[in-house]
């Protein structure tokens, strides 16, 4: 019995991390209507940036995480202004294929710089520390990750719905042409959204590298998970990403317990089932177009 409760708890906490993978992708898709194929590399790139900074200067983990998140925010801004903004237009294939090129380039750059070995972010004893509740044992790191995820979702929700900047972002998502009449430069909004997406992705990447290992090739699988989170959850609200992430995390944790050799199989099957039964996603809004 306890095994199953622990499995469900682990699934939820894994799902929180997945939700964080999906959140940035969903923001980009919601505001710009483009798919960022390089999203997985943003996740993994964040982890590798942390490895190299930690190798050069010993920083407390929290400082390291904050620094990398800030740097990736700047990088996301730069990538959007210098590259992606130039190919936005009537053809959705162009930005998609541009980010495809970015993904291939980044992945192999990471291999050249760091080699193909798997690495992990060292956080000392915190990694294995656990909280014991009666007969239940819950890892402290997953718990903190989960709490941080919830906090970020809440902050983002507040920012989108109760600040002037958030209002501009939502208006741009609704009608990127008409916001220009309100004095909004949509390319700047896009750059800000990409920056936020990159920062969230990098944060998720570092949390991933704390709990397990990553290689430069881990990006593709993270992208696939992020896509699945977005599709399973749906579009139209950030909470849909949380729902999608938690659902996928639960399915992965339970299937790992019941059928250890299945890998991500049951998550994939969940996705196809959602597409068949509820194409707008668990918590998404039905779109007419």
């Amino acid at each position: 019995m306890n095994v199953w409760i622990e499995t469900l708890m682990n699934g939820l906490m894994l799902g929180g991390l997945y939700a964080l993978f999906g959140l940035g992708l969903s923001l980009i898709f919601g505001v710009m209507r483009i798919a960022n194929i390089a999203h997985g590399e943003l996740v993994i790139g964040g982890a590798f940036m942390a490895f190299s900074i930690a190798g050069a200067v010993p920083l407390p983990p929290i400082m390291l995480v904050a620094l990398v998140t800030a740097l990736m925010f700047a990088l996301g801004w730069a990538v959007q202004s210098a590259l992606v903004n130039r190919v936005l237009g009537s053809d959705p294939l162009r930005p998609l294929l541009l980010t495809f090129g970015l993904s291939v380039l980044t992945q192999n750059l990471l291999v050249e710089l760091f080699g193909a070995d798997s690495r992990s972010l060292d956080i000392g004893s915190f990694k294995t520390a656990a909280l014991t509740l009666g007969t239940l044992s819950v890892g402290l790191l997953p718990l903190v990750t989960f709490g941080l995820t919830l906090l970020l979702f809440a902050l983002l929700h507040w920012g989108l719905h109760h600040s002037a900047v958030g209002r501009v972002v939502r208006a741009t998502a609704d009608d990127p042409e008409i916001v220009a009449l309100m004095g909004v430069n949509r390319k700047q909004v896009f750059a800000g959204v990409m920056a936020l997406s990159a920062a969230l992705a990098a944060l998720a990447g570092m949390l991933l590298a704390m709990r397990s290992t990553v290689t430069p090739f881990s990006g593709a699988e993270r992208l696939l998970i992020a896509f699945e989170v977005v599709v399973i959850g749906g579009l139209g609200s950030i909470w849909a990403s949380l729902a999608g992430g938690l659902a996928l995390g639960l399915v992965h944790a339970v299937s790992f317990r019941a059928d250890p050799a299945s890998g991500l199989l049951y998550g994939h099957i969940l996705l196809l089932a959602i597409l068949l039964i509820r194409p707008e996603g668990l918590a998404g809004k039905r779109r007419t177009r």
Partner: protein
Amino acid sequence: MRHLILWAIAGAALALMPFVAGRGLLVLGVEMLVLIALAQAWNLLAGYGGLLSLGHHALFGVGGYALYAISRDLGLNPYTAIPFAGLSAAALALVLAPILFRLRDVYFAVGMWVAAEILRIAVSRSDWLGGASGLPLAGARSISRDWMGSFTFWSALALALGMTAFVGWLMAGRFGLRLRALRDDEVAARSIGVGPQRIRLIVFLISAAGAGMAGAISFLSALFITPMAAFDMTWMVTTVFVCIIGGIGRLSGPILGTALYFTLRETLSFSPGATLMAVGAAAIAVMLFAPGGLAGLIDRLAQLIRQEKTA
């Protein structure tokens, strides 16, 4: 007409390759021709049909596995089994279509990718297909080792030329017109009586059959197939790259792109990482500065020359 004669001469010259080229060159040739065929198949669906697939590597792998299973279970000569491998991939596409055709754009791309992952896991868990350790080619003894390289080359040549000619013929006619109308404006296309799902299904099946046959030929010469090799995402990445750089939605795109890809790969052969970095950078550059790819650049150049002449 002049085009046809040129193509025939080029085809005949290539067909003589096995008699003059060494073994290494022939293997490289097979690889290029397989990539051209796969890229034509992908380009038909994505470039002309507007359905961007991120799962064609699985159709490619399924074609390979079908070849191995058919030649083992039905005792067919592996070369004879190639078309059946194509049919198997098309049959699989027919099964997938009812689910995937509810999706558009990015969702279709992700759906294909997920379907590919499911296939990979399913194959590596199937005892019938040898599980994770794979299958040897059962009919290997029935084919002559001396002629194997040549036969494989000819099969690959026939497939690459055949796919190119077929896509060209298809797109030159009424069907191509309707397919492109559908890609550019579905609502308008519907209103003039184009049945979208049926046309998309036909294109999907043709594309799957092409990818399946390309996979069958590619794994034929390996004499062994594993899920790792058969469902390797590298094939997908290379295919997308070749089409982007050559010119998406253009007949000569896959050929030009393949030529450039192999040029890059062979000149940067000291480091596979450098090749892939160049590939990524080239894709970014093309999307920024020349979305029509090499084929688009050549068109523009030809137009400039014509204008010079008339001026």
